[in-house]
Structure formats: C-alpha cells, structure tokens
C-alpha cells in the first residue's frame, strides 16, 4: 500500500457554534486521486480547506510527513500543497502569465521579483495546461474553462506534491469538465501528484477518482473504491433521495441516477 501523503486525525471544525466537521479520521495515500462527495453543506469544502491549511481545525490535526499543518510556515506549506479554489474574482485584471507567476510566490525573495528559473517553471506549467498562448490575455477575457486551466497552471507552478481542487468542474460544460479532469488524471499518472478534489457529479467521480470519500453532516459515511462506495443503499442514505446504480459492463464502474 502507498504511504500516507496527508493524515487527518480526529478533525473537528466548528463554525460559530455548529460542528461542520465532526471527528473525521482518514489518510490520503501518496499518488492517489481522492474525491470528496456529499450533499450541499455536508462539509466537503470545509474539509478540503482544512486539508489545505487554509482553515485551522477546532480540534484534531492534519499531518503531512508527521508535521501538523498549522505548525508549518505558510511559505513552506505552499511549496507542498497547492489549492485551486472554486472561483476566484480579482479586482485587478492580471494577465494569465502574471497570474501563473504568482504560483512562484513561495519561492521569490523579499521584493517579489521572479528569477529566470521562476519564469521557466511558469512557462512549463502553462504549456502543460495549454495556456501559454493565452499568456498576455487578461483573466476577465478568458472563458470559464480557460480560466480554470490558468488557475491550475498557477497551482502547478507551486511545484507541490499535493493538489487540492474545490469543485473544479462547476460552471463548466461537459467538454471542459472532461478536459480539466483528464488533465488532473494525466498529471497524477505522469508526475505522481496526489490529487484531492470535491465533486458534485458522482459519475465523474467514479470515472476519475481512485477512491471516494462520502460525507454527510460532517461525518465520513464511507471511504473506499468507487465500486464498493457507490452502492444504492449508501448513496441513497447520503443524499437522502432514492438512487439507482448501474454497473458498466466493460469497466465495472458504477453510474448512479436519482429515481423519480
């Protein structure tokens, strides 16, 4: 079995007085693609942000290589973990290249000027995501899919081993959904990046993720391979609607539908 990349231990996260996450414990394995699934307000995004070190657990810990994320300096953490938010508004219209260069922030000096190496890494990340041709365009001029790829390039420029994505397919049509997930899958296969993402679409999750984690009301309901987690019983309970699951004859992957 692969070694652990990130270890979530007795994680509890409280917002005002409500428990958003309640005593979660699991490991993310190195080199896997893990999808976090669950209904709205189940705590998926909150969990992801705790795993990114952007939110601090109310109690419990998130460990990376045995070190608590909250004890790591921000810069050091940013070299190990990259986070792609669901959407990002910027008040100033930075160009695609300027945006991706910001991914080098954990490596630049006091005055923030990028070195030739930073530029080379930026270019490489943009070429990998097919965004180099967009480099001089402002973010506001880009389509949703293009923008998502630019933000992914910024995360690649961070050279982190762990990539966390919050709803990378939201607001995208099916072609761009496939495009961004194919990109994640090939980065995972070629570079051994560990990928954790929240997803709404159970079928896409089954198609791309190695393991799925089902959340309901801030608790882990099930963690495992798609075929064993996406059962009619489990997902009907998690989403509180009757669901039907069909297995693809060739791949054995489960597809699920709500029942009218």
């Amino acid at each position, binding site marked *: 079995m692969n070694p652990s990349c990130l270890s979530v231990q007795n994680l509890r996260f409280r917002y005002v007085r409500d428990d958003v996450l309640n005593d979660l414990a699991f490991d993310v394995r190195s080199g896997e693609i893990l999808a976090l699934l669950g209904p709205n307000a189940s705590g998926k995004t909150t969990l992801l*942000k705790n795993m*990114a*070190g*952007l939110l601090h657990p109310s109690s419990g810990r998130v460990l990376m290589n045995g070190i608590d994320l909250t004890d790591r300096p*921000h*810069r*050091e*953490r*940013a*070299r190990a*973990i*990259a*986070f792609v*938010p669901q959407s*990002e*508004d*910027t*008040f*100033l*219209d*930075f*160009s695609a*290249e*300027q*945006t991706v*260069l*910001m*991914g080098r*922030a*954990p490596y*630049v000096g*006091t*005055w*923030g*000027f*990028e070195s030739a190496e930073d*530029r080379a890494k930026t270019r490489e990340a943009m070429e990998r995501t097919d965004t180099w041709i967009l480099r*001089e365009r*402002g973010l506001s001029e880009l389509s949703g899919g293009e923008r998502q790829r630019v933000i992914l390039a910024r995360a690649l420029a*961070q050279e982190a081993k762990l990539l966390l994505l919050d709803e990378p397919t939201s607001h995208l049509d099916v072609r761009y959904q496939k495009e961004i997930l194919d990109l994640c899958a090939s980065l995972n296969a070629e570079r051994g990046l560990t990928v954790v993402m929240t997803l709404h679409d159970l079928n896409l999750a089954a198609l791309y993720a190695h393991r799925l984690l089902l959340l309901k009301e801030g608790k882990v309901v099930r963690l495992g391979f798609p075929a064993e987690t996406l059962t009619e019983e489990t997902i009907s309970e998690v989403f509180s609607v009757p669901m039907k699951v069909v297995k693809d004859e060739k791949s054995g992957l489960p597809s699920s539908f709500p029942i009218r």
Partner: protein
Amino acid sequence: MKSLTIKKWLATNVLLVVLAVLVAFAASLVGEKSLPFFTRWSAWSPEDKDIFWASRLPRVLLAAVTGMALGSSGTAFQGLLQNALADPYILGVSSGAALGSILGYALGLPFAGIPFFAFAASLAAMLLVYRTAMRGGQIAPHTLLLTGVILNAFLFAFILILNGLASFEQAQKIIFLLIGNLETETYGRIGLVAGIVAAGLIVLTAEGHALNLLTSGPETARSLGIDPNRHRKRVFFAASLMVGAVVPLAGLVGFIGLFVPHIARWVTGPDHRLSIPAAAWIGATLLIVCDTLARTLLVSSAFQTELPVGAVTALVGAPFFLLLMKKRGRS
C-alpha cells in the same frame, strides 16, 4: 500586459522621476513673478534667487511629497480593499489625520510630534472603517465607502467644535487644513515629512507582491504562502503613516489618492510592485501641476487671489469619480 521584469521596473521609475523633476523645476519658475527660464543661474538677480529658494522651491517640494504620499497610499488602499473608489480622503483616513494634527497643534506639541499624532488618528480611522465593512472575511464595497462618508461627517463635527473654541488665527489655520492648502513651509518640516513618506513608500513597494496576491482574495493569498493579516497590517500601517505625515502640512487634499492610482495602473499595468512607486511619482507630478494652477489661475485676474489646491484637485477629481462610478455600474 506583459509580466514585470527588473528592467521594466527600473526604466519606468527612472522615466517617471525624470518627468516629475522636470515638472517641478518648470513649476518653480512660474508664478506671480516669472523667473528667468533661459538664463544661467549665475546671471539670476539676488531677488529672483531668493524667490526661488525661499518661496517657490519649498512649496513645490511640499506638493511633490504630498502627491507621492496620497498617490501611493491610494494605490495600496485600492488594492488591499479591492475597491477602485477607495482613497484616504473618501475613507476618512485623511480626516482622522486632520483631527489628530489639529489636536496636536492645540496641545502645543512641537512640530516633530504632530505627524505621529496624526498617524495614530488616521490609523484608528482606517481600522474603524475596515472593521465595519468586513463581513465574514469579505469587504462589502458599498459599506466601506458609506462608512467613510459617515466617518468624515463625524470627524468634521469634531474639527468644527475645535474650530469654535480656537482663536481667530488658529481658526484660520484649521480652515486651511480642511480645504487642503499648500503653503510655503520650512525645509526642516518638509524634510521630516519627506523622510516619513520615503520610508512608507519603501514599505509599500516591498508589500507590492503581497498586494498582488491579496487582490485574488485572502484565501488564495494564504494558499500561495503568505499570511494575509500580517501584510494587511503592514500596508495599513505604512499608508496611514504617510497620510499622517502630509496632512498636518498640506491639509485635506482630496481626489489625488483616488485618480492617481488609476492613471498609474493605466501606465504600468496592475502589478503593485510597479504601480505603487509609479503612483508616487505621478502623484507628485500632478499635485505640482494642480498647485501651480491654484497659485496662478486667479492671480493675474482682477481678483489677485490664490485658490487652495484642494479646490483644484476637487474640480478635476470629482467629475473623474463620477465617470468611474458610471463605468463601474455598467460593467
């Protein structure tokens, strides 16, 4: 917009500084009595030399330092608050500094103490506006501006109370402070203020990279490896210090901090590492021009009077503000 290189940074700064110096020199020759432009310095009359050293140059220098402080702090505020209409004047930061400096003057402090009094008051004003507009990690843009308007009215009331208690001569000084007026000051005072402004500018420029990250929101900034709160504090501190330094001498010069950042970003692009120093030089240049207009517009007419510089910047700036609101509303 191409990404920033050190070469581009240096070239843009040198160009803008040269422009500011040329404008400063030209402006100090213009006035009620024109000084000779094409004559060698050694051929100047002692009287002309005296006007240059004792009256024109200090005033131009004060305009430059004030423009630098307002332009660069305005750029930093707009970036940090993600609001294209934010500036120290509208947010009440300048009024805070005005109240602080009037209190300082009233307590009979030596001048060296006044900028720090003004700084404390402007920082307090800034934090009050910021805390009020902050909801769940997000700044509500309209609340921010409205809070600034209300705070301005509130601080003005205090200043008017002090004005009522003051002697005629002191009251005159307070009114000048409220309108925004550049007077000939001693080199010592200008030097002190310039030192504070230079220090603030260095800090803000060093914070430029962090400000770039913060324009995508605190969460993204954090994920890219910086602590948003630490950088916000530094920017608030440095920007309030600069405003606190210039207000005791220049008073409430409005709108420079609002439109100079837009011109700077139009010249340099959105990158704060360059737009902040650029806004300092452009602010200096424009405030020198505005003050020269204020000194000369009505002097040659039948009225024989000078305008306060705050009137000129408002005449230019207010229409600009309205245009910006209209443009923002459409997009």
